[in-house]
């Protein structure tokens, strides 16, 4: 993952954008919501432990989610902290949070180039109405793409173990439009748009999952 993409994803997690040129602002109400810490590292346990220590000192009132994912290929290890919807420039700050983040970066040897690292995320749970939906695409249990729902139709392809699957994303959600396997069950699943919903292609070992960090979404979907 390129540094630019990483920063953009970090911002997506919080539903916020604060640096011109890195990503386009979306719903302005989202600019005041969202607190998250995202780290790309090769030491997931240490990152999780350091992240916990960091949040214990922040005294965050809301619930916190933790997730980590495998990434494939070469990525720049770094960390992004977004507080209340604003990217926190810890490298040029002397606030107490900045010192803690610098300590995390030092202990994890960031920034560094990594091959097949982990993406570690701590996300404060907001309220549903102010939370954006993002789509995470996994190939063989590794995160290969993370994008937010878009107003315009966007098609893209993802490589799975059996070949290339094509997806289409819009503001309504994501749907599979082609699959290399014989069964093609994912094509019949229509559009996944509800947080927690997913399109799963078992033979091609691909899945697209709708994420949201609002507190009002169901915790799971029975189908």
């Amino acid at each position, binding site marked *: 993952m390129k540094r630019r993409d990483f920063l953009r994803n970090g911002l997506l997690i919080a539903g916020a954008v604060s640096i011109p040129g890195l990503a386009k602002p979306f719903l302005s109400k989202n600019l005041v919501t969202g607190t998250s810490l995202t780290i790309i590292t090769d030491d997931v346990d240490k990152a999780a432990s350091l992240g*916990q220590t960091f949040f214990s000192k922040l005294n965050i009132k809301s619930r916190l989610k933790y*997730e980590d994912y495998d990434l494939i290929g070469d990525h720049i290890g770094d960390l992004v902290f977004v507080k209340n919807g604003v990217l926190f420039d810890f490298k040029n700050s002397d606030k107490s949070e900045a010192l803690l983040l610098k300590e995390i970066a030092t202990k994890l040897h960031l920034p560094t180039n990594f091959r097949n690292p982990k993406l570690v995320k701590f996300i404060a749970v907001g309220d549903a109405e102010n939370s954006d939906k993002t789509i995470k695409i996994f190939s063989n249990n590794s995160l290969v793409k993370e994008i937010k729902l878009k107003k315009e139709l966007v098609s893209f392809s993802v490589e799975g173990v059996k070949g290339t699957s094509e997806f289409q994303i819009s503001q309504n959600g994501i749907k599979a439009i082609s699959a290399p396997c014989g069964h093609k069950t994912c094509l019949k699943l*229509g559009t996944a748009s509800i947080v927690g919903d997913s399109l799963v292609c078992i033979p091609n070992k691909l899945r697209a999952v709708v994420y949201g960090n609002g507190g009002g979404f169901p915790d*799971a979907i*029975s*189908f």
Partner: protein
Amino acid sequence: MLFRFSIVWFVAVVSCFSQDSSQTYEVYVSKNLIGTLIEAKIISKDVNSCKKILYHAFKEIERIDSLLAWQIPTSEISKINSYAGKSPVKISYETYSILERSLTYSDSSNGIFDVTIGPLTQLWGFNGDEEPATVPDGRAIDSCLKLVGYKDLILNSNDTSAFLKRAGMSIDLGGIGKGYAIDRASDVLKRNGLTSFLFNAGGDVLVSGYKAEDQNWTVGIKDPRKEDKLLGSVELTDKSIATSGDYERYFEVNGKRFHHIIDPFTGYPASNSVSVSVIAESAERADALATTVFITQGITGWQGTSDEEFLIISNDFTKIFTPAFKKKYRFKSFK
């Protein structure tokens, strides 16, 4: 080896309780396993120890699949199937027990739930590698129907063996396998001190404890015809919910839908319901009951407990609730 494993286990458990932070985390892990997407959400004060325990829970799911999946040639179920009509096969007590319970479900449902439905499910091909697109020949269905019958699955408790009496018979635990797997994964977490968590195995959902203080887990129920909608949601703690529907694995011929839930008496997809959601004490029971009620569109004959509740969407899209489904589990309609 056992000693080393015990130490790792002990350290994980001790560290789970040794955190002094008051902050709790919802740890989310998802994996493609056993032919479906398994998601886990665990409430814990210590992310790393929680993940270590969860690793063993996922391993437990894989272990169960290796015992029970007919698609895996080395599984015990595959061995029973390959010796159908020849000889009994000695199996583990665990596999024996799940088969024994399967027969109980069969008796309770007057044969509607039948794990010897393998010949029919394989004929229809919904679990195969290729997309089924045609209705099987009627004679082939009749031939397979003759090979279905749970009373010809003979279990011997003396040597924990199983025997399918006629060649060509086969067991398919698709009706309870996922549910059983997350029941056992839940046991792994509980044995190690984790009490608040959720598992979702391809729509079979098991919840334990609470999401937050005095806050139940919320589970949405998918609308069977509007893929971007939920019918509603229920609030659960220490319960499981499973849904059987005709809308995920199916094909259409001349506008008629043929799906993967096969009636063991007719050999054709059951047509009374489009979706059935069941809340039960265990994911295995919810799984078995959802399949049964889907086929019968009713609970006739089922010797259930008072805690088992249903939401049936009939083939004319009428919603049928058992009395407590709405009130006890705070069903919230999204329409």
